[in-house]
């Protein structure tokens, strides 16, 4: 093979490689999930892919995914919401108190999302109208405030026992007798359906509406958004309100799943949400990330925790591993960006 021919070959290989970059940018994370599933299946062939374990993962991530989706939108605007873990607890407590007060189940069901909505709106108004220098500060404040209020209204003790209609949301099973025969044990968790529906709605919202486009524009360059006549403050209030609302939905799912409201509910779950968003490929500097990426990020965290539990890895090692994965995921992202922008 002479020199010229070799160079041509190199060039062809390079263009193939370069052409693969966008493919990996879009689907690399799904590939990672498939690899994780394959490895865990090999390690735990009888358990990991069993119906019971898979539905268990989905039930576990369903409430966490609501937090991640909300925090994702906030991060797209180059903001942050540290208070979602406390919003979930406050909305859960509010729901429990409404339930204990004997309100009908359909009112109780609305309480958690409504509280989340108001908490999120409070964050948004504080960040924009009070001119807080950074959303970190406002939501750090409300992280304490919301959990404090939750403990004040509940007296700091767990409240248990909700109506069946509430429990169905977090714990319900859609039987698959039609597919697996009478009395089959296979089922689809209600919370999985709810999660898919909500993710789909927000995918439409972010990708196919003007406000969704503006959320990305604000993350890319708030000055450009303002020059284009977009009311940036109003959009930010919408984003933080929706984030709180989703945390409230998370509270509702958690209520159904655990059948109780407890003081430590959602503790540190804001950090899990941020981790899932970052693993899912969103940029901390705003303007970048996809709903599918968030879903993938949530699944990676869920699968990892589940797999490590199945293999009896201690919780301490789990913490070390999850931390490492966050750093690794972002580092891969840095490398990928370097490759994509080289000329």
């Amino acid at each position, binding site marked *: 093979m002479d020199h010229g021919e070799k160079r041509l070959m190199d060039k062809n290989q390079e263009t193939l490689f370069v052409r693969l970059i966008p493919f990996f940018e879009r689907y690399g994370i799904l590939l990672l999930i498939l690899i994780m599933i394959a490895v865990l299946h090999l390690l735990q062939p009888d358990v990991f892919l069993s119906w019971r374990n898979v539905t268990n993962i989905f039930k576990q991530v369903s409430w966490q995914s609501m937090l991640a989706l909300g925090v994702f939108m906030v991060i797209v605007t180059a903001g942050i919401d540290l208070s979602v873990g406390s919003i979930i607890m406050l909305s859960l407590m509010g729901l429990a108190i409404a339930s204990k007060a004997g309100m009908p189940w359909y009112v109780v069901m609305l309480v958690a999302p409504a509280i989340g909505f108001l908490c999120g709106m409070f964050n948004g108004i504080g960040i924009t109208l009070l001119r807080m220098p950074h959303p970190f500060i406002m939501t750090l404040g409300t992280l304490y405030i919301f959990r404090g209020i939750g403990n004040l209204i509940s007296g700091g003790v767990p409240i248990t026992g909700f109506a069946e209609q509430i429990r169905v949301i977090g714990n319900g099973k859609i039987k698959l007798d039609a597919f697996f025969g009478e009395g089959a044990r296979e089922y689809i968790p209600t919370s999985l359906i709810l999660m898919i529906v909500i993710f789909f709605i927000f995918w*439409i919202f972010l*990708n196919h*509406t*003007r406000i969704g*486009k503006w959320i990305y524009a604000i993350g890319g360059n708030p000055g450009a958004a303002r020059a284009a*006549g*977009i009311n940036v403050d109003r959009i930010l209030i919408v984003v933080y309100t929706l984030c709180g609302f989703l945390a409230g939905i998370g509270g509702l799912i958690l209520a159904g799943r655990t059948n109780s409201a407890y003081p430590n509910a959602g503790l540190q779950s804001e950090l899990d949400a941020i981790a899932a968003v970052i693993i899912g490929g969103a940029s901390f500097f705003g303007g970048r990330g996809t709903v599918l990426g968030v879903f993938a990020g949530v699944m990676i965290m869920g699968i990892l925790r589940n797999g490590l539990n199945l293999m009896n890895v201690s919780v301490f090692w789990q913490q070390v591993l999850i931390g490492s994965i966050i750093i690794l995921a972002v580092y891969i992202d840095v490398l990928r960006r370097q490759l994509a922008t080289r000329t």
Partner: protein
Amino acid sequence: MSDNLVLEAKSVSKFFGTITALQNVDLHLNKGEVLGVVGDNGAGKSTLMKVLSGLYKPSEGSLFFDKEKVTLNSPRDSQNLGLEMVYQDLALAGNLPIGDNIFLGREPTRKVGPFNFLDHKKRKQLTEEHLAKLKINVKSADQKVEELSGGQRQAVAIARATAFNAKIVLMDEPTAALAVKEVGKVLDLILNLKKLGVSVIVISHRMDDIFTVCDRVMALFQGTNFAESELKNTSRDEVIGWIMGKKD
């Protein structure tokens, strides 16, 4: 004065407290004309542009669009009258594609039931048509702005300003941040706008820009009209003298 007058400012003054930024400044602009505005830093060029675009209200004096007296309360008002400003910092969102930037805040939508959804197809089509009209070459309308060169970004900013049939475009230092080889492309684009009948006001420090694209040049000095001339009746040295406050 010509019948083609599209914009006129009559004895405009602008005070900021005790500071006088503009004092009895006159300006006129004809259809399809490129007017260069020169002056040293602090001469009042940017203040004048902000008055014309409605960002500042003049303390005294009046503005006329198509010979009709107007009061501008915000840039939205001047946009509605067909005046667009290309900002010096470009005001583009790098993470969004070219088409999204051009139509940001004015996205084409289609109705599905009670909801308005973005019309991606229409936006792409309008973007491609508009870029072709201005002879702006990019790989694809879906390319992200952050992947473009400085000159291409400037072109997108100008495309954004002219996407809604602007009659007047104000440009603040359109070539200041560009590599030498890209300056020519932006200047070509300005000449192209002129051919399409758009009137342009260019603020620039670069004599090359002024003498390549302008029909007329006016100089501000310490917030006042200092000198003005058809381009063919003046020279670079003379204009540079005006900037420094020297007149023969």
